[in-house]
């Protein structure tokens, strides 16, 4: 693949997002630099998974777990290892334990939270160790940011990694372009960790925009997409998180942020990098700004991404990929 020096100043960014703990997707992300010939890797928010899958040892020596809503019996350690690999790749956190431990955890949400914490940390540290030699060998810059689904300790782990640079809440220079980043989103029905009002989000973003020397050539790496675009369409949910139907049909709505849209329209940065809405895979233009949401298919082990070619601070092309 051509490197930047061979391409008359052109370079490329590979951006993927919402990998939600998927081992295989993260490994593909690290491999993307070499595969696509990208000079910079940016991992968008929601890096952590949502589900622990206990694999409970039974009295007869077998293991009981569940997959796709069904109970699954695993007869041997080999089957357990295969199951663990499969669920790791789907973004789950499999955990072998005794049936007694499972029953105890089942009744104690606090302990479940502790378990999540330890498994998420272990997964992230494993990823960092995986990435370290590979990124060093390729000489590729790798950035990451959390999303609204990620706990705050994720920032600490990424920040101290020394391998992947944490972008959250900062303005960072990237080959003459500045990139501002936040994983915070406007309010969602799930009341996740990094949510705030539109006003608060606007203030957060404005405080970073003020630091930009040249907003028109900047990259706005904002997890939540701008409202009312192809990037933010999803079904409307009721208070029980069930899709709202009218006349027997699901009601679709925009889940993006009005503040993000307003600020993009006002400052017209070169590029907007977004995620959050997995179904919202696509490219949208807001004035001169190219906004992209590669979407996510992490549970299938497919890494949705976008390959962005940049030259002289202008976006030459955005290509969506499904690796």
């Amino acid at each position, binding site marked *: 693949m051509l490197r930047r020096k061979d391409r008359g100043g052109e370079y490329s960014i590979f951006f993927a997002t919402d990998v939600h703990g998927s081992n*295989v997707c993260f490994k*593909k992300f690290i*491999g*993307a630099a070499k*595969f*696509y010939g990208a000079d910079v890797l940016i991992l968008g928010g929601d890096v952590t998974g*949502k*589900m622990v*899958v*206990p694999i409970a040892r039974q009295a007869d020596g077998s293991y*009981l*777990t*569940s997959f*796709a*809503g*069904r*109970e*699954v019996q695993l007869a041997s350690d080999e089957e357990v290892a*295969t199951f663990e690999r*499969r669920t790791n*790749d*789907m973004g*789950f956190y499999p955990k072998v334990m005794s049936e007694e431990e*499972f029953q105890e*955890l*089942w009744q104690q949400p606090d302990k479940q*939270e502790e*378990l*999540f914490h330890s498994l998420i940390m272990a997964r992230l540290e494993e990823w960092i160790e995986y990435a370290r030699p*590979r990124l060093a060998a390729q000489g590729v810059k790798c950035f990451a940011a959390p999303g609204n*689904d990620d706990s705050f300790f994720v920032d600490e782990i990424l920040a101290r990694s020394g391998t992947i640079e944490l972008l959250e809440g900062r303005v960072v220079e990237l080959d003459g372009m500045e990139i501002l980043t936040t994983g915070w989103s406007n309010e969602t*029905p*799930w009341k*996740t*960790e990094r949510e705030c009002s539109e006003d608060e989000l606007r203030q957060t973003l404005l405080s970073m925009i003020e630091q930009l020397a040249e907003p028109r050539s900047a990259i706005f790496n904002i997890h939540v997409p701008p409202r*009312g675009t*192809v990037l933010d*369409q999803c*079904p409307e949910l009721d208070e029980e*998180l069930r*899709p709202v139907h009218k006349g*027997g*049909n*699901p*009601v*679709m709505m925009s889940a993006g942020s009005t503040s993000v849209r307003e600020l993009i329209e006002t400052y017209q940065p070169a590029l907007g990098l977004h995620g959050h809405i*997995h*179904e919202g895979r*696509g490219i949208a233009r807001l004035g001169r700004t190219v906004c992209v949401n590669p979407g996510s*298919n992490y*549970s299938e*082990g497919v890494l949705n991404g976008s390959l962005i*070619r940049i030259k002289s601070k202008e976006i*030459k*092309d955005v*290509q*969506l*990929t*499904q*690796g």
Partner: protein
Amino acid sequence: MATASDRVFLRKASGLIKTASNTDVFIYDIGLVSIGLGLGFLLFFGPAAYLGGSLFVATILAGVAMLAVGLGMLTWTITIPRSGGIYNFGTRSMWPPLAFTLSFVEVTAWLFYGSFGAVYLAQLGIAPTVTAVGILTDNSGVESFGANQLAGRWGTFLIASGALIIGAVILASGMRRFFFTQKVMFTIAVLGTLAFLGTLISLSRSDFTGAFNSLMGDRLDVGSDTYQGVITAASGAGWHDPSFDWSRTIALANWAFLPLIGAAFSISIGGEIKQVAKGQTIGIIGGIVGSVIIWLISFALIFRTMGSDFLGAVTYSNLNGVEGASTPVTPFPTLLTGLGANSVALTILIALGFIGWIWLWIPTQILYPTRAIVAWSLDRVWPDVMGKVNERTHTPIPAIALSLAGGITFVGMLAFTSFFQLVIFIEVALLAWAIVLLAGVFFPYRRPDIYEKSPISRIKVAGLPVMTVACALGAIAAFLFFFNLFFDSFAAGHARKSLEVMIGWFVGAFVIYWIMWFVRRRQGINVDLAFKEIPVE
């Protein structure tokens, strides 16, 4: 004790919610079978052109074959639950140029069938209805308008094009309006079908004969006992009622298989189905079984009320132009049942039901290509502008417009030329499906990394992955019906022109892919990257 779904721990996080319910999928699929159009095909072409063919056996054969195809597609869509149909399956399992070629061939075929449906909306839906109303009210102006103007070339072209334009406008205005319209039309179709079946149940043979003689006596030139005269005239012209013939029955099965393919169309919306395994099973299998049952009941009732000899004779005379021995317009079940009921209101209700079934085909056959066009554009093998989605309606208007333009072109060719053998395009689409099903046989072995994440990955049949078995059966069924059509010169056949169309379509699609590949290369874009899987060290 924890249940299966409880044996996991979840944390507070946002979730991907998919939209289409099981009912939506069922309506989507059974609507695309178009029970009314299938009934029309079978009851018109069957007795008239497939002498010796049994409608009952042919329909069951087609149902069994389509179940095999449906099961194969079901395993694909459960394993890769994404919208876009065979394009997504193909790009995950085969050479991208081939995947694009198959997708192109498939979607243009379905677009053709959208136009086919629109043409039949005019010829088998609206024109016979207006004609029947003219006959029942003894209004020769209305009767003539229906029989001559609406069923004529220009009438057909204008009605069919109008239907496509309305369908495209509904799609362009938003998916919510589209689903709402489909549900309204589905309700009308079901009500019309109930009225149709109810009328047939309430009519005796003598009721029908009396009404037919009274209404058609002056219009046909077959003597005073018009009903019997129709049979006599057709017999004189070559129609006969031979004994059961397997070869004609198998050939006749094409006409049941064609609409049944629609039952698997929910593979194109796999990414939008909430419980994909359950929803798709209900939609695909329910669509096939439900349609076959309704058809079989309808055949039994039609034969009881009208008589198989009469139906064979009247359709034969119409198809072969036996002077003065058939109805003024195509003797579609709506027309005949309406005449039998001798009621304008019932005739209109029944006709509306059939029009509803035919309508269900039209916008969805535009929608299917539209989704593929957007997917191609996102993958850069099609012009970027075709992937643009309108911000207000969130619909891909350029792709809809392109599909509409293609559809109207097909309508024009169907109305004004004899270029297309009736269902020639089904052959190319079936071939595309058969190849994708064949790829599915090997998919669990070639892509275990993807297959093992499928909810069906642990299901084995005779020690083989269920996907391998289902796709093998589906591929066999699809290839068998491909050859069945290939050797049925009435439906599709293999005339030189047909073969040229088929081969040309595949080659053309392949060439388009490479043209786009080179164009993108010149723009510095490597389209291969859109499909290739990143290797994991």
